[in-house]
């Protein structure tokens, strides 16, 4: 379970998160929508401790992420994150990209790590590309590789930060299909996305962020069907 | 260290050495740059096969220690050809070719970095090869190559410390002569090093600044 309570976060003068409360239960899929600068991506990097927070608390399985005594490296093993820019490691093959962290962080043997990596890469449809270097892959393939790389750590939670925003339109579908598959397998996920149709399909709940505040949160039928706030109505009108 | 027996005469002697360093460098860089531009354009224009002999000879200058180049040139001119030529002339000649060899690489790199579309555009406007070269390619290539060229000029200044081997008393050699006489190596070396540093450092910084500024637009 991820428990976010009264989280505030500023970059200099700019307050990007103004007291966020959100609890995500195991097996739940929550998508976050909202305009740019609404703070939704920042929240994800705060959840795995890549960004510090100013006040409030974030607990993962009861463990406080921003407590100094927390071993963040240990904690990150169970929270996978995939970014808008897939950040493939260009000097490693697809297989090596995926086995690196299991071998170095989880101290798995090469054979063990490769077995898991091959399984995850097949899972995202890259079983044929094991010895290819990322530079030879399309953006969509690199993004799926990044997902497999995160999954190879056997995380309990997955965070997706606008994973399709940097992709050419024809490549968006293949990545969203991968996310749908994960959702259907019961992975606990928080997805920041611009894809409304996707949000409507996969989410248990959808949260709407506006200027650092979570303006609305509800199951998709409710949120999309009967938006309560004027901001959400405007946002939805603009995205259609 | 401040109880030095270094006198005014010695300082003048050092200054003369510094003057020689600058003179040799200036001559070598001037001649070397002209030759380097010619060789660079030739290498680019003639293609790898035709340019091969030039490429090979220029590469020799970059693959053999400068000290040996100077000794060989001196021996060849003096004992083989039996020509009377001053060490200064030999030093300038060798250092010029040495500079030209590096400069040709920089020029070729600069020309290659000019986008071929830009050149095609120039030629399609009816410019001749020569016009394209002088109005489009060289101005653009200069921008790309200038920071490296500044680095080269400073490199030549530092390498000119080796011309002592053909009896040219430049800065480092004059320092060494004084060291032998005064037995104050550290103090004298620091003066000598400071001289190189004071010339080289600001110019190198300026080159770095140009590189940064021009690579941003």
């Amino acid at each position, binding site marked *: 379970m991820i428990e976010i309570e009264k989280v505030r976060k500023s970059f200099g003068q700019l307050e990007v998160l103004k007291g966020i409360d959100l609890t995500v239960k195991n097996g739940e899929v929550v998508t976050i929508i909202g305009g740019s600068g609404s703070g939704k991506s920042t929240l994800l990097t705060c959840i795995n401790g890549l960004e510090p927070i100013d006040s409030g608390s974030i607990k993962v399985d009861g463990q406080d992420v921003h407590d100094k005594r927390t071993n963040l490296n*240990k904690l*990150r093993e169970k929270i996978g994150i995939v970014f808008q820019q897939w950040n493939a*490691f260009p000097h490693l093959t697809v297989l090596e990209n995926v086995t690196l962290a299991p071998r170095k962080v989880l101290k798995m043997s090469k054979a063990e790590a490769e077995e898991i990596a091959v399984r995850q890469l097949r899972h995202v449809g890259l079983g044929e590309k094991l010895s290819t*270097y990322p530079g030879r892959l399309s953006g969509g393939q690199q993004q799926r590789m990044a997902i497999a790389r995160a999954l190879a750590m056997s995380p309990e939670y997955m965070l997706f930060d606008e994973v399709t925003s940097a992709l050419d339109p024809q490549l968006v579908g293949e990545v969203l299909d991968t996310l749908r598959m994960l959702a259907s397998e019961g992975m606990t996920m928080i997805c920041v996305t611009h894809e409304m149709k996707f949000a409507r399909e996969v989410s248990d709940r959808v949260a709407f962020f506006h200027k650092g505040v979570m303006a609305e949160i509800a199951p998709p039928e409710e949120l999309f069907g009967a938006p309560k706030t004027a901001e959400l109505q405007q946002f939805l009108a603009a995205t259609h | 260290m401040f109880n030095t027996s270094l006198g005014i005469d010695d300082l003048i002697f050092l200054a003369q050495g510094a003057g020689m360093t600058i003179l040799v460098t200036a001559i070598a860089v001037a001649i070397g740059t002209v030759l380097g531009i010619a060789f660079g354009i030739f290498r680019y224009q003639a293609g790898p096969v035709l340019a091969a002999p030039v490429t090979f000879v220029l590469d020799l200058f970059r693959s053999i*220690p400068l000290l*040996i180049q100077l000794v060989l040139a001196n021996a060849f001119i003096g*004992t083989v050809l039996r020509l009377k030529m001053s060490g200064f002339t030999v030093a300038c000649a060798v250092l010029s070719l040495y500079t030209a060899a590096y400069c040709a690489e920089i020029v070729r790199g600069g020309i290659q970095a000019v986008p071929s579309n830009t050149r095609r555009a120039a030629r399609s406007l009816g410019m001749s090869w020569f016009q394209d070269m002088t109005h489009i390619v060289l101005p653009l290539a200069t921008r790309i190559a200038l920071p490296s060229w500044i680095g080269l000029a400073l490199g030549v200044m530092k390498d000119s*410390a080796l011309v002592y081997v053909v009896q040219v008393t430049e800065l480092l050699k004059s320092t060494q002569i004084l060291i032998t006489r005064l037995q104050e190596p550290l103090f004298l070396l620091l003066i000598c090093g400071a001289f190189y540093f004071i010339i080289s450092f600001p110019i190198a910084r300026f080159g770095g600044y140009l590189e940064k500024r021009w690579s941003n637009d």
Partner: protein
Amino acid sequence: MFHYTFHWNQAFQKLPQMLDGALVTVEIALASMVLGIVFAVLLTGARLSGWRTLSALATGWVEIARNTPALFQIYMAHFGLGSFGIHLSPFTSLLIGITFNNAGYLAENFRGALKAIPETQTRAGRSLGMTGVQAFGWIVLPQMLRISFLPMTNQMVWAVLMTSLGVTVGMNTDLYGVTQALNAISFRTFELFAIAAAIFYAITKIITFGARLLAARLFRY
């Protein structure tokens, strides 16, 4: 055409001695390169450490190495340290001088290479649970070494050429030193140094060719 009679045979008889010298030259160059890389990594770390004194010292090293003649640096190791009562052998002075020079140039290069690697690479590593050191070692460092590979090859060639400066502090076992010593006995200056030049040329070609082979093996991406 020439009034001069070349005595190539006489010079070629000295080839074995010169090749022994070449071996010493390569040894010094290699040692100075390995040490240079180690110090360059340390200097780069020091410059990025944010600790002001340390960073200023490292920057001082880099700027002196890049803005004074290599010969000056060797003199400093030999005569400069001598003033403090530290008397080093010609071999050690030469090795220190070249290493100092290598480290300075390489450190500047490493810093540039690091700038070319996006911050997000480290971030991606950290988000997989790696420590900062792991992310640097497994993700950033290999990419940095690739970007710096050609400059490192060039520096290695420079190191070989710089060994010739050892003669100025009394070095007589390297290729240049041996040639100089032979010349003092036989006076076949042109022939002897022409052979030395050919050996230097061969060494640099072997280095650049070897580096190309190595690069093709190491960097397949």
